[in-house]
């Protein structure tokens, strides 16, 4: 059967550049977030944003690199400790505290990633979990983490020496700017030549190798990027709540961020944001139910896995037949 060579390229043959509807959704979200602190508590919203970035960082690794890390609390937590410690004990300004916290997560990601990427599938998840547990016990024992108490009453300080972050609303817009930057960075990574190879490795690792790609290097690179962005989220979170504690490095934190990603839709751009908002919103508004929140969370997870495996945004994306 002879097929005439088409004179022009089908429009969607290569998903190149940002589709217009992505830009639209981005601006709509930004608009909502600009108005939101005048309606909802800024601290609550900042928490949502930190976890949205955290989940997006995990999603970069899981949804686009095909690597399930079950120990991402390690990077989130270590960054929280480092930024809390340097801000409180060393008296560093917030921008430097956040930078150092993020850098610590990057280094930790490089160390753990280099060892973890040698394993595949469930073994990879187990190795990341095992290392995260080591980080947890280190945090429990190390002298500078404050043990069970954590590091409390962390000063938010003045950004660049003159923007006082003690004001929630001021801090809110700073966090919004950082998280937006982080999201744009993730978006670019996904839609770069590197991201294209990443998706190929996710889809078929042996085939990528057979085409000459050194897959381990790409996997390590995305692992470090993901850990770094998770660290950025943790560092901000420590300053927002003025607290870094064992909760931040606990394995339940690793589980929660996986849950957010799956619930929102892994491998989508906006899914982790939705997942984070739903879970944090639930924890916040159902706080009076006490321990039942965890049960409720578990039920939501089971239902979402049974009913829509692609996650909330994944399902919407299928309905409107557009990648989100």
């Amino acid at each position, binding site marked *: 059967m002879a097929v005439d060579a*088409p004179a022009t390229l089908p429009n969607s043959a290569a998903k190149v550049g940002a589709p217009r509807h992505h830009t639209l959704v981005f601006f709509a979200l930004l608009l909502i977030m600009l108005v939101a602190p005048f309606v909802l508590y800024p601290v609550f919203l900042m928490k949502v944003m930190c976890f949205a970035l955290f989940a997006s960082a995990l999603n970069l690794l899981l949804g686009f690199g095909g690597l399930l890390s079950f120990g991402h609390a390690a990077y989130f937590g270590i960054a929280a400790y480092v930024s809390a410690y340097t801000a409180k004990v060393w008296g560093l300004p917030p921008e430097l505290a956040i930078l150092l916290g993020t850098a610590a997560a990057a280094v930790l990601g490089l160390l753990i990633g280099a060892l973890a990427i040698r394993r595949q599938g469930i073994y990879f998840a187990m190795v990341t979990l095992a290392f995260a547990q080591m980080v947890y016990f280190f945090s429990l024992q190390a002298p500078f983490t404050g043990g069970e108490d954590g590091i409390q009453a962390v000063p938010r300080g003045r950004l660049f020496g003159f923007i006082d972050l003690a004001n929630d609303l001021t801090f809110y817009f700073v966090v919004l700017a950082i998280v937006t930057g982080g999201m744009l960075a993730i978006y670019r990574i996904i839609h770069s030549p590197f991201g294209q190879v990443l998706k190929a490795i996710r889809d078929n690792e042996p085939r*990528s190798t057979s085409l000459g790609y050194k897959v381990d290097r790409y996997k390590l690179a995305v692992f470090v990027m993901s850990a770094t962005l998770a660290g950025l989220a943790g560092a901000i979170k420590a300053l927002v709540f003025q607290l870094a504690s064992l909760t931040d490095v606990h394995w339940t934190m690793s589980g929660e961020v996986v849950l957010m990603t799956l619930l929102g839709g892994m491998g989508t751009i906006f899914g982790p944001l939705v997942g984070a908002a739903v879970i944090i919103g639930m924890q916040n508004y159902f706080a009076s139910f006490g321990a039942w929140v965890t049960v409720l969370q578990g039920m939501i997870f089971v239902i979402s896995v049974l009913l829509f495996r692609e996650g909330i945004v994944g399902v919407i994306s299928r309905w409107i037949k557009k990648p989100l």
Partner: protein
Amino acid sequence: MSTAAAKDDIILSAQGLTKRFAGFVAVNGVDLAVRRGSIHALIGPNGAGKTTCFNLLTKFLQPSAGAIRFNGRDITSLSPAAIARLGVIRSFQISAVFPRLTVLENVRIALQRRRGDSFDFWRSEKVLSAFDEDALRRVDEVGLADYAAAEAGDLSYGRKRALEIATTLALEPELMLLDEPMAGMGQEDVARISALIRRISANRTILMVEHNLSVVADLSDRITVLARGEVLAEGTYEEVSGDARVIEAYIGAGHE
């Protein structure tokens, strides 16, 4: 052919290639010599060790013993990606496309190798559209132009195989290793892919595993017959098809 000339013409060779899996020898002392520019077929009953041979030659498996040479160079200790970079590209028995990339993107990911490594995560993927035209031409070459925008995972089995060949070809490999390229294809596809393989073999070497013996007879210059991990016979189609041991191996395995 004189031995001296033939020796110089060998692009890929293996000596004493052996692979043991926990007490079981899948490939046992296989000697192989693939002549440059030829289509060399590796045939044998199911479980003979053909795919394992491919995995050893491309280093997807570490040989238990033996040496592999490509263009006279010992490549036994190289990594699979390094061997691919030398121009030895394999396909897989189980169709190996990138299911969530489009057909065009599947081929483009191979063309993208021309940039070298793609660690530039800060650059827009728009730079890759430079490869789109070439990718589309290659997609068209295997009859998939109408599906350029479709996700590869949605293609029929035969079309996936065709896409795989287009992707492999996009690297302009010096040596292609095709593991059952026609398996699961309809008559029409077999004819088209046969013609394609013949056409592309003009300036490269092909080593292929294929169960369709009429395709093997039609395409290959030389055939190596493998059974129980060992070389049973080697020669032209006429030579090996007349070999009593080959006939017995095939009948013994319930073939033909």
